[in-house]
Structures are given as C-alpha cells and as structure tokens.
C-alpha cells in the first residue's frame, strides 16, 4: 500500500470515529469543528473553523455555506494541508 493510500485510510478512519456532521454547500460531511477564543484588535471573539477530508467537500469557494451546530457560516478561507485534509476558516452569517 502506498503512503498516500495509507494516509487516506487513516484520515478516513479518524473522521469516521472523531467527527460531527456539518452541511457544506447542502452536502452532509464529517467534520471536526473548532471555535477557539480569539481577540483580534482587542475584541472578544472566536476563530471558527472546521477540518474535513478534502475529497468529501465539493464545489468549495470563498463564500460557500456551512451549517453546523445551529449556526450558519460562510467560508472565508480554504486551507488544504497537503495530506488529504482541508481546513475551512468560517465567519458567522
């Protein structure tokens, strides 16, 4: 088995066990959601993002819609990690 195939298998197994469902562009996708504290410019806030298997997210672009935990978001940045996963930076709508 190639390293790439092994990596994809590990990613898939991890996301199957350690993820929630988000709706990305109307498609349900397994994601790990993160909303850590941030205070840009001295404002209390957060930096919401999610990570998912790259191939499970289709039609991604800045402005794509995400629904997670009862909140609607828009995608502000798309950050592939080069190892089969992609982090989406989010902004509340």
């Amino acid at each position, binding site marked *: 088995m190639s390293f790439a195939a092994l990596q994809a298998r590990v990613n898939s197994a991890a996301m199957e066990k350690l993820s929630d469902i988000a709706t990305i562009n109307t498609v349900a996708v397994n994601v790990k959601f993160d*909303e850590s504290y941030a205070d*840009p*410019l*001295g404002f*209390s*806030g957060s930096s919401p993002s999610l990570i998912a298997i790259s191939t499970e997210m289709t039609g991604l672009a800045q402005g794509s819609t995400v629904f997670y935990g009862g909140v609607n978001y828009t995608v502000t940045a798309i950050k592939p990690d080069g190892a089969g996963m992609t982090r989406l930076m989010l*902004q*509340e709508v």
Partner: protein
Amino acid sequence: MANHLHKQIRDALKTALTGLTTTGARAYANRLQPMTDSTLPGLRIFLDTEEAQGVTIHQPQVQERTLQLAVDCCAKAVSGLDDALDQISKEVEVALAAGITIGSKSLQVFYEGMEFTDEQSDKPVGVKRLRFSVPYTAMSNAPDVLI
C-alpha cells in the same frame, strides 16, 4: 487639589462622547479589557502623549502643552463595517469639534488624522482610530489647574 488635568480632560472627553447616536453609552476611557459584543459598537478613548514647552524662564514655569489623544471607533458587523465606522467617526468628529469644557473654561480639540484596521473574527471587526490634539496651558507646579 483637583485631579490632574489629564484626568479632567479624559473625563470631559468621555462626557462629550457619551450618548452619541450610534455608540450610546458605550464610551470607555483607557479600556484595556477586550471589547465584548455588549460593548459594541463602542468608543475607546486613550491619552497617548504630550509635549510641553516652557514660555517663561524661571520655575514655576508657564507651559504650553499639547496633548495627543486617540478615539477608537470600534464595530463588529457581518456587512457594512466600513460604513458603520465612518458613521461613528462622523459623530465623534462633530461632537469634539465643539470642544470640551474643563471647569468654566473651554478647550479646543483638533482632528489630526486617522488609521483604519480591520480583521476577520467570528464576524469581521474593525477599528477606525481618530487622532486629536488638545492644546492647553498650565503651570509646571500646578498640573491640575488650567490657565
């Protein structure tokens, strides 16, 4: 003895900037804590620096002082952030153009420029920092009395 003129000026600025249409009571002097959603849109008032120049030779000296201050117009919005900050800064500039009152005396407040910064957060946040100067005169041994 009265408070230092810096405090008197800061208090007068806060009074002048409290109750504006957009920011209401959310005007804060020397606020170090992060702004929360309940404090926005809001204003942060900072006294930054001061230059003093003696106009007499002997002590105690009559000094012409120029205080540099900043008013941060702060907002968080999904859309129209620039427009909101422009509106807030308009209200601040109009309010301070009338000057401030220290005791029975008026001080002029001069607009000197601005810097704009914004950043992504859970919603976009922005600060329009307005810089002003306040010239006044005081004795070197009585920084609490305006002359």
